[in-house]
């Protein structure tokens, strides 16, 4: 499972340690949180002194220490799951059925099961600490038929608390998928870890409490109707009896017990709070800025330097942190910029700048390609396209599968930013067959995969000829019409500039299975989601744009050897082409609609607005260059169309 990651020095040396530190802090925070929980759960207005003394004696008891150890174990497990399931590129389900596919994925089922069990453990600890009527599962009771021998009866209060733990744990893992809780976003405002933690703490408290309230509400309803099933099962397996004199709790009268509801809520809040704190700490630690050296004098360290690290595709977090570091260094650090502009010592080649600019431009070109392809299918088919083709176009426009056959075809696959990293995908990331992109879930290993789907996800050619040197997107737009004669043209409707590059091995017309067709037709497309999915990894593009534009701006005064000058035309044209593609994308009706803002959830919804952030950053980046260079830009070789476009920017008319 870990084979791919262990090979990477970064995961071994940095990410694991960061995760370990975050878990350690979460464990350290556990005793105070537990103390607060104990006080809140036992608090009574009428006897405050008694409450405090009770709490103190409880906290020092052996059972409390034991349950604390258990809770530590749970936190360790949660932290481990966070590390295992996190992703920097969110998984966006484009349709309801895709979401269902995510939820029913085996990996997700395992996750849910583990969360259920952990929920039971935490609830058991809660039951022990609250004490009183919740403490044990069975209790001796008198037999109803007058027999004097005592027998064990089921304590339904204990059971209801344990089941509540399981339910909350399950809904936590379920909502985790729906709200993309495993998505780790990067903040634009850098702050120290402690301050970030302090700033987000009130939010975590609030969202744990509200989430607990909602879960308990749902749980109570479920228990009211289905509570007899687990009750009977437990009684049967553990040979317990039901006390006929006690009120059954799966009735309206039994559930209208205020103290019971309060204890359920406070236990659920405690559970969610500890888990959310662990998640928050993990996010804060893992997104901390990492400073990569720009160049190293030792050859064994070269693979850790920024130009090399930027080109690495796996793990994704490494690429993101490298791009973040690039954006920051280009903005704040003149000495490190100087290293970027420096020439290699012998040879006099600007290797650092070449590697960095090439990588950034290939990222941008990839996004342009994706957008053009997307827009192309939309434009040729019109808005009123059938739903099934809607899914196809996305599949074709976005997928970038580096399967074995494909590797043979493309000698050097240009790095295409994969949007995989679905929750389920990380385990197979290192394998020869990389996962499908998230937006087209169900992916290949999902239960819904079918030959048809596999066919649809046939590789888009990797060696795009217009990497960095695009003349005009019109060429690209014409591509499919010119070259594709097969019926699959739409499927592979991505820009193809030469007939030779049409992927042949997977072109055999394979009949889609009935089930797949049914599912395809069932797919109720969420147009905004498809737009979100298109920009799911745009944080990387934003950093690439910032890094490039700041470096170019700084080069005006800092670049002694003129290394930037040689690439300036291609950088500008790359940005302008992207600008055009982004503009066209935002003309689509769903693209510019603002997503509803969710506040009460721990799930980070930054990804929903990434396309707006990208648009703003792109414009700012072009303006940054034009404002710095001004009329000097007229001396640059570029096509008339681009010059016209650039003139708009020079006159501040965009």
């Amino acid at each position, binding site marked *: 499972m870990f084979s791919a990651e262990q090979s990477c020095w970064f995961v071994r040396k940095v990410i694991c340690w960061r995760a370990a530190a975050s878990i350690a802090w979460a464990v350290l925070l556990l005793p105070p949180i537990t103390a607060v929980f104990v006080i809140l759960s036992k608090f009574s207005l009428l006897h405050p002194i008694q409450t405090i003394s009770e709490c103190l004696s409880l906290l020092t008891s052996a059972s409390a220490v034991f349950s604390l150890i258990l809770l530590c174990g749970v936190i360790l497990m949660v932290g481990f799951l966070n590390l295992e399931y996190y992703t920097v590129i969110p998984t966006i389900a484009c349709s309801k059925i895709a979401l269902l596919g995510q939820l029913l994925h085996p990996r997700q089922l395992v996750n849910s099961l583990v969360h259920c069990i952990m929920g039971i453990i935490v609830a058991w600890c809660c039951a022990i600490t609250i004490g009183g009527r919740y403490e044990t599962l069975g209790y001796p009771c008198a037999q109803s038929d007058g027999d004097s021998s005592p027998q064990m009866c089921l304590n339904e209060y204990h059971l209801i608390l344990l089941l509540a733990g399981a339910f909350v744990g399950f809904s936590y893992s379920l909502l985790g998928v729906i709200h993309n809780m495993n998505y780790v976003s990067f903040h634009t*405002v*850098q*702050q120290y870890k402690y*301050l970030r933690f302090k700033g987000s703490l009130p939010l975590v408290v609030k969202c744990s409490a509200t989430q607990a309230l909602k879960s308990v509400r749902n749980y109570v309803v479920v228990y009211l109707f289905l509570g007899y099933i687990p009750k009977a099962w437990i009684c049967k397996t553990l040979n317990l009896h039901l006390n006929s004199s006690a009120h059954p709790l799966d009735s309206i009268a039994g559930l209208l017990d205020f103290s019971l509801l309060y204890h359920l809520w406070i236990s659920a809040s405690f559970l969610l709070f500890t888990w959310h704190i662990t998640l928050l700490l993990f996010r804060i630690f893992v997104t901390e800025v990492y400073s990569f050296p720009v160049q190293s004098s030792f050859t064994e360290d070269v693979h850790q330097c920024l130009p090399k690290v930027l080109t690495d595709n796996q793990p994704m977090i490494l690429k993101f942190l490298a791009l973040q570091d690039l954006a920051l*260094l280009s903005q704040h650090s003149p*000495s490190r910029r100087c290293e970027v502009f420096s020439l290699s010592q012998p040879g006099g080649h600007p290797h650092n700048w070449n590697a960095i600019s090439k990588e950034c431009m290939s990222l941008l070109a990839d996004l342009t390609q994706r957008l053009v392809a997307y827009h192309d299918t939309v434009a040729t088919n019109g808005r009123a396209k059938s739903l099934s083709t809607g899914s196809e176009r996305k599949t074709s426009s976005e997928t970038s599968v580096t399967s074995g056959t494909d590797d043979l075809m493309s000698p050097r696959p240009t790095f295409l930013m994969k949007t995989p990293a679905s929750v389920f995908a990380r385990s197979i990331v290192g394998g020869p067959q990389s996962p499908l992109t998230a937006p087209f879930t169900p992916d290949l290993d999902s239960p819904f995969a079918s030959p048809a789907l596999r066919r649809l996800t046939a590789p888009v050619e990797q060696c795009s000829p217009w990497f960095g040197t695009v003349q005009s997107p019109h060429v690209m737009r014409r591509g499919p019409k010119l070259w594709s004669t097969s019926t699959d043209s739409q499927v592979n409707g991505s820009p193809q500039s030469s007939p030779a590059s049409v992927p042949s091995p997977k072109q055999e017309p394979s009949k889609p299975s009935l089930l797949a067709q049914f599912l395809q037709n069932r797919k109720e497309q969420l147009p905004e989601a498809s737009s979100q999915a298109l920009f799911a990894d745009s944080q990387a593009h934003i950093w690439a744009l910032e890094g490039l534009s700041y470096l170019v701006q700084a080069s005006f005064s800092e670049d002694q050897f003129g290394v930037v000058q040689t690439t300036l035309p291609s950088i500008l044209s790359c940005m302008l082409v992207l600008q055009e593609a982004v503009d066209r994308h935002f003309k689509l009706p769903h693209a510019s609609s603002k997503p509803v803002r969710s506040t009460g959830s721990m799930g980070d919804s930054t990804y929903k*607005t990434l396309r707006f952030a990208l648009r*703003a950053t792109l414009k700012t980046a072009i303006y*940054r260059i034009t404002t710095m260079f001004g009329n000097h830009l007229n001396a640059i070789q570029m096509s008339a169309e681009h010059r016209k476009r650039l003139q708009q920017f020079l006159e*501040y008319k965009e």
Partner: protein
Amino acid sequence: MCSLALFPPPLPSGQTTLCESNNELLSGATTEDRLKQESSPLSLYFPRESLKLHSRTESSSKAAFLDHSETLWMRSAAAWRDGGLTGLLNEITNSHTDVPKCLSVSSGCILALLRKISSFHGSLFPHLTLSSEDMIAEFSQVLNWSDCVVRAFAWHPHTDKFAVALLDDSIKIYNPKSVTTPTLKHRLQRSVAAVQWKPLCASALAVACQNCLLVWHVDPCSLSTRPSSGCAQVLSHPGHSPVTSIAWSPSGSLLVSASPMDTAMMVWDVASESCVPLQRVGGGGVSFLSWSPDGSHVLASTPSALFRVWETRMWTCERWPCVKGRCQSGCWSPDGSRLLFTVLGEMVIYALTFTDTPAGVPTSTSKGPQAAAVVADLSETTFNTPNGDVIIGGEIQSLAWDPTGERLAVLLKGDPQAADRRPAIIAVFKTRTNPIFELLPCGFIQGELGAEPRLMQFHPNFQHGALLTVCWSSGRITHVPFYFMGAGVPHFGLSGSPSVPRPQAGPADFSNHSLFTELIS
């Protein structure tokens, strides 16, 4: 130290300052001169009568309808919606007939307790008791904001267009190159305290309003004169109103906003409409923000005698407690190394110098100076003019430093109630930051008779020196150019100090006085 005594005397009344040329402020009294100045396309006049003001507030429409009785539940729900918890308690307390006695009594008690707590809080921070209009007037950089026709003004950082916020809550955008002047109106755009254009962008304009922040996207190529409210992004955060000050980062990526009611300063990522609250203990709010031109620091002053200087890389801050009052205004030198600020209740300008942190080394706090130095004294000074003695000086409303760092404009509050009637006036200093920091007197800027300056701003990229735009109490907007050669421009003769004052006809020979000079050390 430079003081007002070194200034040339103010012009006789009726004369207006036109421009600075050859190190001398030129004035004109004839209508011909004035017409010449006013005929330029950017000079504007907004007579108060031309503005359609709101005759009533929204809530007052209640009086127009017949009173009818609603059920207690309906009333309570309405009170909760309109007035929150206090409104609900008020409603319960007041409806004796419908609710049980114990409930109304207990809610009355809670209400009284809440009021006690809030009045205690208010006694700690007196500004919290102000209404939001008064609060904006109190903390705005505009002199006498509530009575001002032009409430806010902003030049575009790269082009010759500007935005003017008027008393009737509309914003007009003027561009000499285009015939259309878009008027921006929005339901939420009330009591505009500040406007600012986004740097490195042609279209985005941030507006600080009473309840929220608006970011307009005004397409410069559009011919529409009334952009729809769909062009505006609404940024709001609970508890963050009224917004009195905003500042864009010079790189155009972030926007900070401040409200005296909110102890947290908000850093907005405008495109994604998300914000990060930056909160520190003390101060009771944030009233004024200013981002240094190099982007490295942000000045954030609070309503109490304390201001903070944030460094923008890791967003840590330095606390600067003042002795006397709150920091009223501040401005940064073009290279971001020097901060000039004024304190309410004092008549001097202070300077703080920030040395650059070593490049690439992230330090926890920016290494700053230990104490602020007084660089100018603007206490009251009597000038003998042919029309009699004129007293000028006093507290400072706002500061503005031109983008080349050669002129510093200071808006003095004046005192219309005083017996000797000190008028509000703009004093302009010549400044030099290299090789040593110097402040030299330049002169006063006066408008036509009876008009007081209310608001001023320098043009961000004027080619021939500096251009100061002044909004007057009469509703007029004029532009006063200062023609000079910048120190950055190489030229012959004088080595690097072209703007040394050589008063040919200056009445006071102030070149002999000791002027404020700071040693390089």
